[in-house]
């Protein structure tokens, strides 16, 4: 919304020393967001009104004219290419030193005396685009210069003075006004400015309407809830035509095109008071009867913007007995509006239900200055003043115009104006500083509240313009007082608390540990992905859409499903990065959404539950040279559990998901829980996703892991080590591929009291040993707790180990 600084001054006694910038700064600090200040005429220095005394052909150019121009104190010779230049005309003359935009383009350039085709020219006669006034003087043809002959000013008058361009326009962010129905016009903003500068605020003065008898109008409000007040009055003797200059200028400053005197007046009143008005052509309303009713489902209506709209029964329309005339509070109809032939009008000044207006305007995709205001819950008292003002302006502008009917006022509303009880103690407790009582009363009273004080207690009556939604409780008054008093004047203090250590968020701590292990120990890179996945991704994985929760209104049709694992987007990351890197190691920690299990409660009494949303970690590894990335994924698993000082088991898994490599797949167990899956992505699925490489993947449910860890209390890992030297023997054995390390390990562990540890350090498969075999290299450590071993003892124990390997596993010693 635009606010004119001069317009504000009509209502606040601001001294000239208070600049628009200061007003904007105070408004920003205490009331609304001011996004910009446009100072009019700021680039119009050295630009004056000039009078062309004579003009003749340029001696060296056909299309240029040589002009003698009176600029008050001197006469200048100017070369001009304007198509409409003629003797006696008042023009915009940019003198040497003025800043103009050549042909309306590029940067501002300072004028210097120059020669054009050998003829001196000391200045420039300007087109509107060259001085930034294209809106005020629209160009009819490219070479047209501004004609100011209609102005009654002396040559030499500064252009900004001649045009009255001495205003500053404040641009206010509409969003910052969303809770303030009273600030949608100059009058409301002026009230704030008056309080902020502690200046007198002028009452809005407007006279009562003297009713006429010429036209009989009736209003029937069928839905008083959606239309708490409807006022109307007819006027006759109207002559529709151009608006007076002051009105045009006011609207132009607000970025509004002037349409005609009647429409301009409705717009002016709206920008003045914030109350939208509408003017109907009285002759187009059947029997002079206005009906405020809800639309019929499917009812069609052509709005002012020539769009055909389909209405529904939740929308309110202004109609006569035959047809709809306007979508109430949103936009008028094409057929019932004012045109050049209109001689009698009916003004509507009404109040509509805010949510109804908002829902109608949303449904129609039609937002207007009017709907933007009504949806903020306007003060129903405003309708009367606005209507009076509009009538007054018409009477002043149109000779012969008169009020032709009684003023109809259908209304049923009640405002909750309090009073609210407030005390200095309450204020101090909320704000944390003691405010002077006098200042409190001043702020409230200047804002329009009626304050009755009794000792330290106040009884505060809410003014009607703040009573529709924005003020209802003492806390609302606290805000009014402290924002005007100044947030910057409240000194900051730290609260005091008992030194109770905060309850630890164990899951978050676990997430952090896991992230640090993956990033810092294993050089994985953390990614953040959207929680949304596409149907295409799900299908390529071979998963079923029915297992996914779906958005009702996805941003794009592309990704409408909520992820139930982190894998889909992680694989997409692999695909997008693997072209640039020989190796991609990434992980993500995040929540996934289950269709099967319930999670947190959805309401305060816990009757209904939300879907379970566990936190998972997923790790993905791909390398152009690695055809068995399973092991990298397993290393991630081992590192995580080692870092957590916890145990896990991998167990075979027979319920293979379509994207899992069936023979490179394991479930991860810890405690009594299944925590996740370790696998390679099935090569056909990777391929479908556009990944040529094998991908190793680990997925762990961290929410469950946290539960498992919380049950492991006081696990002790330390065992005293023997003081006597150990003996290490390495051994490689050839076994069939189906023999598992786990079986070998469990057969050997504890087989001899001297055997302290068995560890696998290499596995080889290859041509040299035959396709069905693998070579496994183990390291055995022998040790006695009480003495140094002798070779014979070790030989004996090692022989026993070899015997087990041969007999149980058919191992061949290499």
């Amino acid at each position: 919304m635009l606010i004119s600084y001069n317009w504000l001054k009509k209502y606040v006694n601001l001294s000239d020393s208070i600049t628009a910038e200061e007003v904007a700064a105070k408004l920003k600090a205490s009331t609304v967001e001011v996004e910009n200040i446009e100072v009019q005429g700021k680039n119009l220095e050295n630009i004056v009104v000039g009078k062309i005394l004579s003009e003749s052909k340029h001696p060296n150019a056909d299309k240029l004219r040589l002009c003698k121009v009176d600029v008050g104190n001197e006469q200048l010779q100017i070369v001009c290419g304007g198509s409409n230049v003629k003797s006696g005309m008042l023009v915009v003359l940019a003198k040497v030193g003025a800043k103009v935009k050549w042909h309306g383009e590029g940067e501002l350039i300072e004028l210097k005396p120059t020669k054009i085709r050998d003829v001196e020219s000391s200045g420039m006669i300007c087109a509107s685009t060259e001085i930034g006034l294209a809106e005020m003087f629209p160009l009819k043809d490219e070479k047209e210069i501004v004609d100011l002959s209609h102005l009654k000013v002396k040559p030499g008058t500064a252009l900004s003075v001649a045009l009255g361009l001495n205003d500053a326009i404040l641009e206010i962010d509409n969003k910052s006004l969303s809770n303030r129905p009273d600030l949608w016009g100059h009058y409301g903003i002026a009230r704030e400015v008056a309080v902020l500068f502690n200046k007198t605020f002028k009452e809005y003065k407007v006279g009562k309407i003297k009713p006429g008898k010429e036209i009989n109008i009736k209003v029937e409000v069928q839905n008083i809830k959606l239309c708490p007040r409807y006022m109307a009055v007819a006027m006759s003797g109207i002559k529709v035509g151009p608006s007076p200059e002051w009105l045009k200028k006011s609207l132009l400053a607000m970025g509004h095109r002037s349409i005609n005197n009647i429409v301009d007046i409705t717009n002016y009143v709206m920008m003045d008071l914030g109350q939208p008005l509408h003017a109907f052509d009285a002759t187009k309303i059947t029997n002079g009867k206005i009906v405020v009713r809800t639309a019929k489902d499917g009812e069609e209506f052509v709005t002012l913007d020539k769009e055909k709209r389909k209405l529904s029964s939740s929308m309110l329309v202004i109609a006569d007995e035959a047809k709809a005339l306007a979508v109430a509070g949103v936009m008028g109809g094409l057929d019932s509006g004012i045109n050049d032939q209109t001689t009698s009008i009916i003004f509507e000044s009404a109040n509509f239900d805010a949510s109804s207006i908002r829902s109608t305007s949303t449904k129609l995709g039609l937002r207007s200055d009017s709907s933007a205001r009504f949806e903020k819950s306007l003060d129903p008292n405003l309708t009367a003043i606005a209507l009076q003002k509009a009538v007054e302006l018409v009477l002043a502008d149109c000779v012969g115009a008169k009020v032709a009917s009684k003023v109809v006022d259908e209304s049923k509303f009640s405002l909750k104006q309090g009073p609210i009880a407030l005390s200095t103690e309450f204020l101090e407790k909320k704000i944390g500083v003691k405010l002077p009582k006098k200042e409190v009363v001043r702020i409230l009273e200047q804002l329009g509240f009626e304050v009755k004080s009794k000792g330290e207690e106040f009884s505060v009556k809410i003014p009607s313009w703040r009573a529709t939604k924005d003020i209802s409780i003492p806390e609302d008054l606290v805000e009014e007082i402290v924002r005007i008093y100044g947030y910057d004047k409240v000194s900051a203090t730290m609260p005091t608390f008992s030194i109770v250590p905060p309850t630890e968020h164990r899951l978050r701590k676990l997430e952090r540990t896991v992230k640090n292990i993956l990033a810092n120990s294993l050089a994985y890179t953390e990614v953040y992905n959207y929680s949304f996945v596409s149907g295409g991704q799900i299908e390529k994985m071979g998963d079923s859409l029915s297992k996914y929760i779906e958005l009702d209104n996805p941003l794009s049709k592309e990704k409408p499903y909520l992820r139930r694992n982190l894998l889909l987007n992680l694989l997409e990351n692999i695909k997008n990065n693997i072209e640039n890197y020989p190796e991609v190691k990434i992980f993500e920690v995040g929540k996934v959404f289950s269709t099967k299990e319930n999670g947190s409660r959805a309401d305060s009494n816990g009757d209904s539950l939300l879907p379970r949303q566990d936190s998972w970690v997923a790790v993905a590894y791909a390398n152009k040279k690695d055809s068995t990335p399973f092991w990298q994924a397993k290393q991630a698993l081992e590192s995580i559990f080692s870092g957590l000082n916890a145990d896990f088991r991998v167990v075979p898994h027979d319920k293979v998901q379509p994207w899992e490599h069936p023979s490179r797949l394991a479930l991860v167990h810890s405690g009594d829980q299944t925590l996740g899956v370790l696998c390679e992505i099935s090569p056909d699925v990777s391929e479908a996703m556009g990944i040529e490489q094998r991908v190793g993947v680990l997925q762990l449910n961290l929410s469950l892991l946290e539960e498992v860890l919380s049950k492991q209390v006081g696990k002790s890992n330390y065992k005293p080590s023997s003081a006597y030297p150990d003996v290490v023997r390495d051994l490689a054995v050839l076994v069939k591929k189906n023999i598992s390390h786990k079986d070998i390990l469990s057969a050997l562990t504890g087989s001899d009291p001297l055997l302290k540890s068995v560890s696998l350090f290499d596995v080889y498969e290859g041509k040299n040993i035959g396709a069905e075999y693998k070579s496994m290299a183990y390291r055995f450590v022998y040790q006695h707790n009480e003495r140094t071993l002798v070779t014979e003892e070790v030989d004996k124990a090692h022989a026993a180990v070899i015997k087990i390997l041969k007999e149980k596993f058919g191992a061949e010693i290499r």
Partner: protein
Amino acid sequence: MQEKLKQLKTEALLALKSIKDKAQLEELEVRFLGRKGGELTELLKGLKDLSDDAKREVGQLANEVKTSLEEAVSAKKKEFSKIEMAGLLEKESLDISQPALPPKSFGHLHPNTIIQNDLEDFFTSMGFMVLDGPELESEYYNFSALNIPPDHPARDMQDTFYIKNHTDWVMRTHTSPVQVRAMQKYGAPLRMIVPGKCFRNEATDVRHEHTFYQLEGVVIDKDISFAHMKGVLESVAKHLYGPDTKINMRPKFYPFVEPGVNLEVTCFVCQGKGCRLCKQSGWLEIGGAGMIHPNVLRESGIDTKVNQGFAFGFGLTRLVMLKYGIEDVRLLESGNMKFLEQF
């Protein structure tokens, strides 16, 4: 004999001065101090012919001469060793500009994680709990309990992702629902923060992202005031941007607080003088805050006659972008390694 000893000492010390290398030094050592045929040894052979008194006297002098010669030789030796070692070490010089090879690859935490960890630690140090809540929320917690009425614009389909076949489920549009969950669970007094993922149904571009992160905080106790809110927020600002950072508050409407403010901090690029980043204002907006609305407290089971408090929310995503000078928000959730490996 005494004369001879003195002469030997002078001669030896003189010879030592002109010695050039270790070999010459050894030669000299043998010549004067050698056990067999060394000049001093030879000279002392005459000692046995002296009287007891003279023996003692000359013996003492002989010892002095021997010690001083040995010390001089040893000093010279050290000198040569030092020179020799210096030469040797010189030959072992390395190109220190070269990286350690083979190169080791490093992992990277997401920038959001880095900032979030930092703030979690900061708040924990002030006794705040770190909490978490569902990302798929109920309308009750996301809106109603937060004093956002059914016809509030925030509930529009343009702003909120709704869930198919569950009209009362939404993707949470802010972390604020956890305020209510926390108050219902822990009551007062309460100090907590909740960092987390939020969703808004808006088209993405350089500055807008439908998925982003917030960090919400709540402080509730008997006398928690607006001034306390200023104190805590100022300490956060100083933690983030240095001890000279100031905060600025301006009115801003949020249904769940009253009064509500937006929070600006001194622009850390220009120290408040005005620059491109702060659009010449000297201030950067980093979040919103306010005294918790009594309706929200009541809905959360807090006795508003006894307790009151404030809440604040930072755009965590915005803090990340400011901190690292990231101009395109979409990079954060792009999974692009070229971006991620810079952190």
